[in-house]
């Protein structure tokens, strides 16, 4: 996992959940006799006197972690804690507050060229699948259970690659537009940045997101079950603007989008979609695209399956028909029970999932919690999200965080007082077209069990009496 390593004492004291180290044993505060501590990787500690003192506060997650390890509930990768201790329910000894060393010393220097998360957040990271025999043609999951709000940080956006991550020199990168056009054109990155730019928030979801839940609940964390989704503010040029420069011939009905990676990944996209809202983007969340997300240029096809959002975009060819590339025939097609397969099923329909509480997290005690989750729809805005606290018998609308944008992640929230009983919680998204997120049974009835893609069934989590959370049938 390429988690950022901050300057500090990682490996000595700051082992975060996810390292496989019992946190309580390593958890300590570092006390230095007057001089500053400047260390790296736990190797050098230029401090005259150093003592370990038990830290009062973080012991709760440590206990949770050990219990979960015992219970076998910790899936590989990131596991976050819901360390939400309620008033009057703690058996811990409350000590007088210390003045910690970070208050009694100067902090580290200003001016790191690129800031990184706190070393205490090392457990928050992408998780590589174990279902691919290679690390180049593979995928990794966004830790949505550890994140906040609607935007996914650039370093945590899920990945799907077919031939690894290319190292592209933007000065040498070109976009060629040709085929059924009046004039074939070649664009440099500088050319593309001269176009009037737009910045828009859109979700990006792999069509295979949650495929593992199709047949039965897997027991995985929400990162594993729903982590092939991310949301960014994308900046670039409407594809319509670029196509207008080349001038499309009336025969142009489809376009081929091709990547410059070792897979030269290709997908066919209808021109009608291209002229609607497709973007050719060079930036995400305010900075240039990351290499793993298409640097320096990619397609964003709002609301449609991730695979058509071709990364490292080098070529667009207009034609009268689709090209039937390998991706759109053998891979991103949906096999029905009758043996026939659906092709060009681009849309990602409305879906939602509760991210807190979810598997891998633990409720410390009875009392107040806020149920939180994400909802999205490839058809437009989320109109409503309903939450059930009794296994789907009764539902109530959740609050939606503004802004509620079309084809974008929407955060929902619901206040909840847990009474300590076993409780099955679930969410159900409804978009502005009136489409209601279906149950797993409804999906299987319509499509059979041989589908892999476009699974958007209602997800249930069960809060057990000990506060742990399990993945159960909805």
């Amino acid at each position, binding site marked *: 996992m390429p988690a950022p390593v901050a300057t500090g004492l990682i490996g000595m004291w700051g082992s975060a959940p996810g390292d496989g180290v019992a946190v309580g044993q390593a958890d300590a505060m570092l006390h230095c006799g007057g001089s500053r501590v400047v260390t790296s990787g736990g190797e050098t500690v230029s401090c005259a006197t150093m003592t370990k003192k038990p830290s009062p506060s973080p012991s709760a997650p440590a206990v949770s972690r050990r219990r979960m390890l015992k219970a076998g509930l910790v899936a590989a990768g990131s596991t976050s804690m819901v360390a939400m201790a309620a008033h009057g329910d703690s058996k811990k000894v409350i000590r007088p507050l210390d003045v910690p060393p970070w208050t009694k010393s100067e902090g580290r220097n200003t001016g790191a060229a690129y800031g990184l998360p706190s070393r205490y957040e090392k457990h928050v990271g992408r998780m590589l699948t174990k279902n691919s025999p290679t690390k180049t043609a593979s995928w990794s999951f966004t830790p949505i259970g550890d994140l906040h709000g609607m935007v996914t940080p650039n370093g945590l956006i899920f990945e799907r690659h077919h031939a690894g991550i290319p190292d592209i020199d933007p000065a040498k990168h070109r976009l060629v537009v040709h085929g059924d056009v009046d004039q074939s054109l070649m664009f440099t990155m500088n050319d593309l940045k001269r176009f009037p730019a737009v910045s828009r928030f859109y979700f990006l979801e792999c069509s295979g997101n949650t495929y593992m839940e199709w047949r039965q609940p897997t027991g995985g964390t929400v990162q594993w079950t729903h982590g092939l989704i991310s949301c960014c503010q994308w900046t670039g040029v409407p594809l319509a603007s670029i196509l207008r420069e080349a001038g499309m011939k009336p025969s142009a009905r489809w376009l081929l989008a091709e990547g410059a990676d070792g897979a030269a990944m290709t997908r066919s996209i209808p021109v009608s979609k291209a002229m609607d809202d497709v973007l050719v983007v060079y930036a995400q969340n305010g900075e240039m695209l990351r290499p793993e997300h298409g640097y320096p240029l990619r397609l964003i096809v709002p609301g449609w399956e991730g695979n058509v959002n071709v990364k490292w975009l080098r070529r667009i060819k207009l034609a009268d028909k689709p090209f039937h590339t390998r991706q759109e025939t053998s891979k991103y097609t949906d*096999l029905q029970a009758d043996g026939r397969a659906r092709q060009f099923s681009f849309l990602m329909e409305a879906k939602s999932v509760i991210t807190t509480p979810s598997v891998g997290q633990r409720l410390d005690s009875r009392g107040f919690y806020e149920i939180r989750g994400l909802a999205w729809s490839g058809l437009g805005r989320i109109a409503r999200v309903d939450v059930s606290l009794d296994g789907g018998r009764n539902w109530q609308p959740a609050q939606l965080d503004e802004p509620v944008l079309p084809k974008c992640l929407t955060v929902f929230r619901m206040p909840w007082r847990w009474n300590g009983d076993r409780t099955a919680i679930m969410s159900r998204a409804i978009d502005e077209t009136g489409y209601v997120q279906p149950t797993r049974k409804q*999906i299987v009835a319509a499509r059979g069990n041989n589908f892999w893609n476009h699974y958007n069934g209602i997800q249930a989590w069960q809060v057990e009496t000990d506060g742990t959370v399990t993945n159960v049938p909805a």
Partner: protein
Amino acid sequence: MYPHNNQPTAAALVVTLFLPLFSLVLLTLACGQKTDDQNATEKQDKAGAEAQEQSSPKPAPATGAGQARPTAPTRTPGVSGERLGLGTPVGPEVYAAWDIDVMPDGRGLPPGSGTAKKGAKLYKKYCVACHGATGKEGPMDKLVGGIGSLATASPLQTVGSYWPYATTLFDYLRRSMPMQAPQTLSNDEIYSLTGYVLFLNEIVGEDEVMNSTSVAAVKMPNRNGFITADSRPDTANDACMNDC
């Protein structure tokens, strides 16, 4: 971006030489600048329509005000009007090395030829490590077998059982394979490997010549196995609220 940087100099000149006219000229310049900005804004109105809508849940000022919220966005973003003149006109001689796609009717298939017999040796050299001795072993995608399995509980989707077009096989081999060195084999080699994978699936003969016409003419077993119209929504949850 907008041309108003020279105006202070021009204004200074005006003040010195034509003091009585100062106010009038300055007003004119100010108006001119405002008009430039307005033009630029108007040009971008359509491009920015959705962005404006996204930037605020409330109706956007001016152009956005009073517009009904669309139920499903169907706007055409982009710059309206004339072309911007960006990009360099190029001909096929410039992008030929990238123009490698192949369509089911054979468009894009290059000159050259090969046979399964020749492909067998290439397969051993380039493919066997990932796809197995007979194309059935993996560990990567299985290429052979599965015909008749698609409607069962254990479907096996291979080139033979699932892929609708042989042109797709040629296209994919040429653009993406072998994985560690894609786009390094000759067209003849790609034709031979195409033939060999089809031969392993008992779709073509060992000596059948694969070329720009024969690959497009191959009838794949699952040619008619696809439905291209999206039938969704195919579920109808009723959003029941109580006693469901």
